[in-house]
């Protein structure tokens, strides 16, 4: 049946516009907010949006990589907290470089642990990462004793939060590099290809000689590492190792990826979902703040938008 239904001479106009609907939506959203509150499109606020987006985009990119394999990472938020605390402690005792190494090491370890549970042992992503999140949360609280790790070396904040190159802040540079690297990895490496294939059909991939276990371990390790990089940037910004830094990031990062167009069914989508989704959510929150929408009402809007984007993102013609 499918052969007949998809054999159309030209895609409908709506289908052709689909890739542009989110960027257009973001612009429209900005303009609507700007009509109510002109400060929304001031240079200072646009720079602020860019900075905010870069953190979320890194976390969304982490989720995108595992969403491709039909998984997700519920431990992302607490990993951010643990990295913040762990890197903070290493930094105070052994310097910035040691802190960065510790942060990345911790993040990679959490990611590998998730990957082993899911890939090698075969536990489903929901249960595995939920379990991990409890362990990681406990570690973060225990290590820090519940208190922020401070003060961090001033150089850390100066470079990774205040620093800028060609007038662009460090966090934005890092986000751009991360997104570009992941984008290139997905498109031009065998690992990237295997991520798509394992997500589309792990059984078919197996029968074609691809080992889903190895691919899944790599996916969660990358996801963890990206969460760690984002965590280091956030830590630089707050200036202390925070045991609660992760907060809502797990859900926000999944939401951004999904709003951006990543499919929970795996095997489809790319890194642009992370960037666009993060930008959309940041513009929405930022705008609502500036036009003084009540904080709780903001959550309602966010929730509604996420559900709506899932409904609109469904492919009607495909089965």
């Amino acid at each position: 049946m499918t052969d007949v239904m998809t054999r159309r001479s030209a895609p409908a106009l709506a289908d052709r516009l689909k890739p542009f609907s989110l960027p257009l939506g973001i612009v429209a959203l900005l303009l609507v907010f700007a009509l109510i509150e002109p400060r929304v499109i001031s240079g200072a606020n646009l720079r602020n949006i860019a900075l905010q987006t870069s953190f979320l985009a890194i976390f969304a990119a982490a989720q995108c990589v595992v969403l491709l394999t039909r998984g997700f990472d519920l431990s992302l938020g607490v990993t951010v907290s643990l990295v913040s605390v762990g890197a903070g402690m290493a930094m105070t005792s052994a310097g910035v470089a040691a802190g960065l190494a510790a942060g990345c090491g911790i993040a990679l370890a959490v990611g590998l642990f998730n990957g082993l549970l899911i890939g090698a042992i075969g536990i489903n992503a929901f249960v595995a990462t939920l379990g991990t999140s409890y362990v990681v949360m406990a570690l973060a609280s225990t290590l820090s004793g519940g208190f922020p790790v401070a003060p961090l070396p001033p150089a850390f904040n100066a470079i990774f939060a205040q620093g800028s190159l060609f007038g662009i802040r460090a966090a934005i540079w890092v986000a751009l590099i991360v997104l570009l690297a992941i984008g290139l990895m997905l498109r031009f490496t065998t690992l990237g290809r295997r991520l798509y294939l394992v997500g589309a059909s792990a059984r078919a991939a197996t029968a074609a000689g691809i080992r889903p276990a190895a691919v899944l371990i790599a996916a969660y390790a990358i996801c963890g590492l990206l969460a760690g990089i984002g965590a280091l940037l956030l830590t630089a910004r707050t200036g202390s190792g925070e045991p609660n830094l992760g907060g809502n990031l797990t859900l926000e990062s999944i939401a951004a990826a999904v709003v951006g167009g990543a499919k929970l069914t795996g095997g489809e989508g790319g890194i642009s979902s992370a960037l666009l989704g993060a930008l959309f959510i940041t513009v929405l929150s930022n705008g609502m703040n500036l036009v003084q929408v009540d904080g709780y009402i903001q959550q309602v809007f966010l929730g509604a938008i996420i559900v709506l984007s899932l409904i609109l993102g469904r492919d009607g013609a495909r089965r």
Partner: protein
Amino acid sequence: MLNVSGLTKRFGGFTALEAVDFTLLPGEVHALLGENGAGKSTLINAICGTFPPSEGNVQLDGRSLLDLSPLRVREVGVAPVFQEFSLAPALSVLDNLFLGREATRGPFLRRGEMRREAEALLSRIGFSLPLDEKVSRLSRAQKQMVEIAKALRLSPKILILDEPTASLTDGEAEKLFEAVARLKAQGVGILYVSHRMAEIRRLSDRVTVLRGGRLIATVHTADVTDAELIEMMVGRPVDELFPEIHNSPGAPALRVSDLSTATGSIRAASIEARKGEVIGLAGLVGCGRSELCRAIFGLEDISSGEVVLGETPVAKPRPDRMIAAGICYFPGDRAAEGLALNRPARENVSMAGLRLRKLSRGGLLRAGAEPEVVAGPLDKLGLRPMMPERRAGAFSGGNQQKVMLARGLVDDFDVYLFDEPTVGIDVGAKTDVYRFIKQLAESGACVIVSTSELPELLHLSDRIYVMAGGAVVQEIARDEASETAILSHYFGE
């Protein structure tokens, strides 16, 4: 009873069906024949109300079905059984039979009543099914029977069977034929879609042939020969379905000795295959021939025995190692295990050869070279339409099969394992698959074909191993092979 007149269906600029007339009488089995893409599915969907036709009319006993929803169409007496199963795998057979139409008293299910009704239904149609078993644990054949039984629950006037025997063994198909005969005697009109000539000849009163969305002819089955039907269907004379294979058995390519699997699906099976030889694996579904292929390739855990490739024993088969060692396996369940359906055909062709130097260097894909690497094999197999960037799932069954088989040409393999290579594909594509097998064997590869199609065993293989209950029960040489010789071993002598 059912009267379809001037039915036309367009999808955008594409005409899937053009001015097709079709009638179905009470107690008639009317076969619908055509290659994939000929419009069979479109016709069935228009009758079932899945989508409205662009022009024309569909009437059941003088009443138009066009403005009815698919659900209503079922209720007025049209029962379709599609190839894709619409069963809930986690529920029992009984639950599935009554899914959405449970017998209830208030909010409570009347399980006893449902069980009695289900038993009566099964005995009426002559199927034996374990009512309390979960559907996910059933064989494909059993699932098919559940699907048919479910359709028959509402005592339909018209039963639509879309390739019902595609996954059945001959024994199971026999059961289905008996059920069809019984329903026919009860006055049910049956629209029967199949690619298998023998079935059409045996069951049908009339045949309607579609090609390219047009009605080619409606004829009485008794008045035409198979060759005439095939010619009508493919639009060209088919001199011979099976090519002549000039085999020249050479050095040993694969030896399996006393192989058993951990699940017990294979018991001490031994086979031997040489280069340039086509080996047939015969037996009922579940006899272990599929599992033997899977175990050789490393998809089933081996508990004892040995696999020797050429001269080298393989300690523990694993798909990636076996591919590297020169074994190519084509799974029988194309949709579940053969293809990543929502990825482009190109990626499906290259997926088993990503490690090759022509496709990657040090983990970096050679994205520029890939389309070319893939084009040759697809061209050789005759993918239609030749659109490597289209997602694999959008192709017809036969062309999906070609996408999967193209994998075998990306790399150089010594041994090819085919499991049910022609399930659910049309005659045209079948001949392409047979030609592919011929080319492989004649170029010196060792080909092993596990199939439930007796004609394939007889026409393609040099030697046949018959399996039953997980064991190899008989080896039959080409000049001794005949349907009876093979069938006599199906139940383990």
